[in-house]
């Protein structure tokens, strides 16, 4: 489980490359390319959050805030000052990273639930700021006319083009993160999750690593926010509320937090549920999400990715009982 081979990544890349072409041919799933853009954007966040939860054993219930800060910094700088969107995206990453460092350093010194509560409080404060600082953010009405993105003068003006841009980002981040996991830093992170005291005595600088992962997860959320803003050309605060932070937790828990593929599978399933399959439930979908989260926490502690392993263990135990 710890070693991630090149084959799954290559297969997944193949699947992504042909996806828009297949979706274009089959009318029933014609809008799936659009939904997959959002899956890609959410994957950027869940890869970081999964690293934080599964590998560093910490929890953030305020990830929507970093996502929102990325989106708003991009939106404000491009619409008010006419700056280059890529430059704004970079500035957004710097701003978000700094804020995450300032919030993370003190809270990560404390025990598990303190970071959860600190990030929860932080997320709500940021949400209130998005709503209240009307001269900057447009308040509850949000901001419109955010420009699209272009690469070397080549406008990314269709869903398919944006799809490849977003998933390009996802693959770069995915490969980078896998390399981190399989390096000494990854081993240090897993050691922290198993036992902080033991990791500490083996010479791992525990608090430094935890803050680093927290900042990394925030930066990825910021990138996702910028990509979201430039894709929809419109943002408003309700996208970045507490429930979105919880939805991200559901993605990680459902997919499985101890495996990077879990973050991607979870993001895929929950995004399709909320954009397509749960329309019938309308706003009562929250009950479905609560039920999913509870059932997964109790019965599938390793998420869907851990399901084969669990079944195998169950099978072996059955055999040895006979």
């Amino acid at each position: 489980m710890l070693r991630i081979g090149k084959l799954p990544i290559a297969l997944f890349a193949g699947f992504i490359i042909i996806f828009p072409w297949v979706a274009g041919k089959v009318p029933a799933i014609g809008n799936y390319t659009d939904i997959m853009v959002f899956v890609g954007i959410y994957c950027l966040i869940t890869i970081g959050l999964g690293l934080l939860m599964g590998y560093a054993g910490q929890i953030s219930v305020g990830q929507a805030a970093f996502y929102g800060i990325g989106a708003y910094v991009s939106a404000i700088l491009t619409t008010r000052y006419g700056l280059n969107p890529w430059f704004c995206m970079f500035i957004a990453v710097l701003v978000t990273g700094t804020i995450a460092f300032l919030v993370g350093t003190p809270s990560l010194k404390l025990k598990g639930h303190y970071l959860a509560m600190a990030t929860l409080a932080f997320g709500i404060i940021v949400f209130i700021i998005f709503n209240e600082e009307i001269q900057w953010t447009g308040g509850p009405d949000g901001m419109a006319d955010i420009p699209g993105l272009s690469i070397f003068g080549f406008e990314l003006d269709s869903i398919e083009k944006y799809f490849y841009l977003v998933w390009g980002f996802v693959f770069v981040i995915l490969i980078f993160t896998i390399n981190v996991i399989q390096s000494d830093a990854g081993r240090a992170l897993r050691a922290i999750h198993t036992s902080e005291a033991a990791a500490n005595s083996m010479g791992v600088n525990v608090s430094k690593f935890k803050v680093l992962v927290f900042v990394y997860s925030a930066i990825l959320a910021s990138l996702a926010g910028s990509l979201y803003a430039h894709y929809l050309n419109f943002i408003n605060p309700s996208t970045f509320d507490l429930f979105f932070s919880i939805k991200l937790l559901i993605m990680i828990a459902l997919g499985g937090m101890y495996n990077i593929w879990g973050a991607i599978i979870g993001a895929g399933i929950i995004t399709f549920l909320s954009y397509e399959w749960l329309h019938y439930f309308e706003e009562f979908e929250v009950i479905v999400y609560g039920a999913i989260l509870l059932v997964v926490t109790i019965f599938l502690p390793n998420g869907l990715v851990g399901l084969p392993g669990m079944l195998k263990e169950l099978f072996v135990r059955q055999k040895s009982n006979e």
Partner: protein
Amino acid sequence: METITLTGQIFQYLVTGITVGSVYAMVAVGFNIIYNVTEIINFAQGEFVMLGGLIMVFLHVAVGLPLILAFPATVALVTLVGVLLDRLAINPIRRPTVLSLIIATIAASILIKGTAMFIWGKDPFDLPAFSGRDPIIVLGAVIQPQYFWVIGFLVLIVIVLTFFFERTIIGKAMSACADNPDAASLVGIDVKRMVLLSFALSAAIGAVAGITMTPIALMEYDRGAMLAIKGFGAAVLGGLGSFPGAVIGGLILGVIESLGAGLISSGYKDAFALIVLLFVLFFKPSGIFGNIEISKIKRF
């Protein structure tokens, strides 16, 4: 028209702050009970308050039960929800970790919230005040009779809990679980039952908070999260696990919020308490009455 002096205004903010703070204190006490016995932070604590208010509205206003019956019936129903929370969400987790317990209570909180939206819809509900709405004017400040009920119930809860934890055998058994669950089970205390009891007790107190605050502040399905985090702020400010700390923390938080909303910005009303929470977490996580040594031996 009579002009309101600044002193009168500040006195008004203090009075409302203490009332709101009493509600936060009750939520904080609920956090502490569960934390002391189980070391779990129950993120669904605010949902108990919300349910208390809405079930009371249903029984008292819709069904028409008299106050004296509807009150205990509401507390009993919410207590049942607390028992179910432990039995269905906490107890079944086989290898509990901080992460899984936090996620389980978050899951429970959105389930309860979603169910409440299903039952009551999105509109806020009002509840008649216990002893009318004729305000008393003191020093130019308007004091609703309901304020006394809120503060009075906080005082009552603190007295009863102090007696319970210090004088009764069950209360002492619960405290023993907090100190050392393994040792407690060695001397014959049923730790699982004590955990269940802590959830029941905590839910009951949440219900009282919800019932008493609804005539002042109305109640709707999505109030839980904000009440929970402010109650947690009160608990941390006073020192997680300390009952006098919860009361002082709640009152301070309520007054800061009321003064901040009145004098600085009403749009940021909800942010003040959260900023205080962040400051306490960053600079003095043990709180006013908290003991660093005790917090170090806690598992989570």
